[in-house]
């Protein structure tokens, strides 16, 4: 087995495709897990800080995309936060992340942030973060590649148009027929265009919400579909002449979950932390603080 290691490592280097599938750290994690389980039995709390299996020992490594946008993350000035800079703990997801860390017994200084683009969160193989917090909606298909925590936020989608648009006054989904809509690729917002609104025009799809917002400004699209909590920042700061037409009826139980490596043992402990935050009302407080805004009507 040891002799295989060298050519194996070479191959892994050569084939970028399977770079992340290298099994070295997996094995290490497995032996650690079985070792821990047999030695300590039930006497030790598996969620005690020193029992957690972490990407980097002694710290909680949390991933998100760069830049991270309000109201999910923000810097001291209320602008989008660059995770490579000093953490502020401001914004809904930042606050939830620190609250979870606190429940697990980590101080603020023991939380480290890493940048992981949205698409890369789901690459197969071991992760160099403990969990990712990036407005990832739970989907059964997604759950096959990674593990999700329980909900830390229940999502609604919303439609944003320019105030001058003929769709700005839409009161029903039917009135959005014929609208050229746009959304970020791979998001639930995109699914909402296809499944809920079902406009007769094919949607435009963008790499980032920022690109979609540019297209809205340029009137290359009639409307933009985004997570409802993002609409506040868009209509207030990014496109002041835009307005939120309305929210979309929720499709099933849609929520944001923290994302873990498939089979992560940390998930149950984090779920425990989220449950206790929910019970104590802390989660609601955080939502009140960062997501509160006057809610537009639900389009039906």
């Amino acid at each position, binding site marked *: 087995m040891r002799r*295989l290691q060298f*050519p*194996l490592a070479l*191959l*892994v280097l050569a*084939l970028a*495709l*399977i770079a*992340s*599938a*290298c*099994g070295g750290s*997996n*094995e290490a994690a497995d032996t650690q897990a079985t070792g821990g389980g047999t030695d300590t039995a039930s006497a030790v709390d598996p969620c005690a800080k020193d029992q957690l299996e972490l990407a980097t020992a002694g710290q909680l490594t949390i991933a998100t995309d760069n830049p991270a946008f309000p109201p999910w993350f923000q810097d001291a000035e209320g602008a989008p936060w660059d995770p490579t800079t000093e953490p502020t703990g401001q914004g809904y997801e930042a606050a939830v992340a620190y609250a979870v860390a606190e429940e697990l017994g980590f101080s603020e200084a023991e939380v480290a942030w890493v940048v992981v683009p949205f*698409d890369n969160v*789901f690459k*197969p*193989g071991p992760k160099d973060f403990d969990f990712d917090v990036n407005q990832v909606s739970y*989907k059964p*298909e*997604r759950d*096959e*590649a*990674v593990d999700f925590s329980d909900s830390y936020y229940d999502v609604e989608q919303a439609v944003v148009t320019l105030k001058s648009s003929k769709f700005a006054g839409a009161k029903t989904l039917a009135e959005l027929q014929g609208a050229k809509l*746009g959304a970020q*690729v*791979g*998001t639930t917002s*995109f*699914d909402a265009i296809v499944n809920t609104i079902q406009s007769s025009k*094919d*949607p*435009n*799809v*963008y*790499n980032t919400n920022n*690109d*979609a917002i*540019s*297209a809205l*400004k*340029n*009137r*290359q*699209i009639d409307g933009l579909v985004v997570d409802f909590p993002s609409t506040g920042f868009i209509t207030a700061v990014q496109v002041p002449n835009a307005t939120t037409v309305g929210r979309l009826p929720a499709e099933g139980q849609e929520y944001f979950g923290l994302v873990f490596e498939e089979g992560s043992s940390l998930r149950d402990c984090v779920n425990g932390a989220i449950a206790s935050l929910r019970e104590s009302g802390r989660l609601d407080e955080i939502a009140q603080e960062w997501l509160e805004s006057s809610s537009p009507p639900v389009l039906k």
Partner: protein
Amino acid sequence: MRASGVSGVRSILIALASTVVFAVAIVVVVSSAPGWPEVRRQFLNREVFRESLDVIPEAFLLNIKIFLIAEVFILLLALLIAICRSLPGPVFFPVRALSIAYADFFRGVPTILVIYVLGFGAPGLEISGIPRDPLFWGTVALVLVYSAYVSEVYRAGIESVHPSQEAAARSLGLSRAQTLRFVILPQAVRRVMPPLLNDFIGLQKDTALVALLGPVEAFRQSQIEVASNFNYTPYLVTAILFVLLTIPLARLTDWLVLRDRRRQFALGGAR
């Protein structure tokens, strides 16, 4: 250094054995990798492959459309630039300088930047009469960038035609334009067919960049499929489609080059 019959057979056998060993080694090492089952599930999923075949080829038509439209304009614009650059005499200096600056600029700037700047910037100017359609601006960006490359290919072809050809044509009473049209360009274009094709293939692939501006082409459609399945197999489908488009084009050029060579040699023989 001619190989004898025996050693010829021997080298064939060695090549064969080496290829087999090499292939087996790759298969064994890859499939015995601890992450292989996971990678196979993520990248080579039959079910997802079949699902992707329903939607991605349709989106791929957009790539072909962009490619075909852009190609026509590229061939024309690039030729114009190349001719401008080969105009002789001091009077034409500004034209030459401009075409050099053009080629330098658009070969130097990353295509993705040109697409972003034109696609989101030009409509943002709000000049009335300027189209907003991202497809339009994406195609314009590709035309601008690829014309710079192709103009250099043309220029190389034009310069490869021996000056005596031009002198002979002029001495026969052909005007400068006629010389270019009937003597220089036919020879030049024929010689640069392979590198021209090279740029065509590059263009085919770069049509995927237009997706940045919103239109859903094959790559974007596969991204959508990837995101909804959390499985990377749709990328494989798109890769196959692009390769399938490239191969006939490559064979066509091979054939054109071959036909051309045959004609030239046949002509030489007849003399």
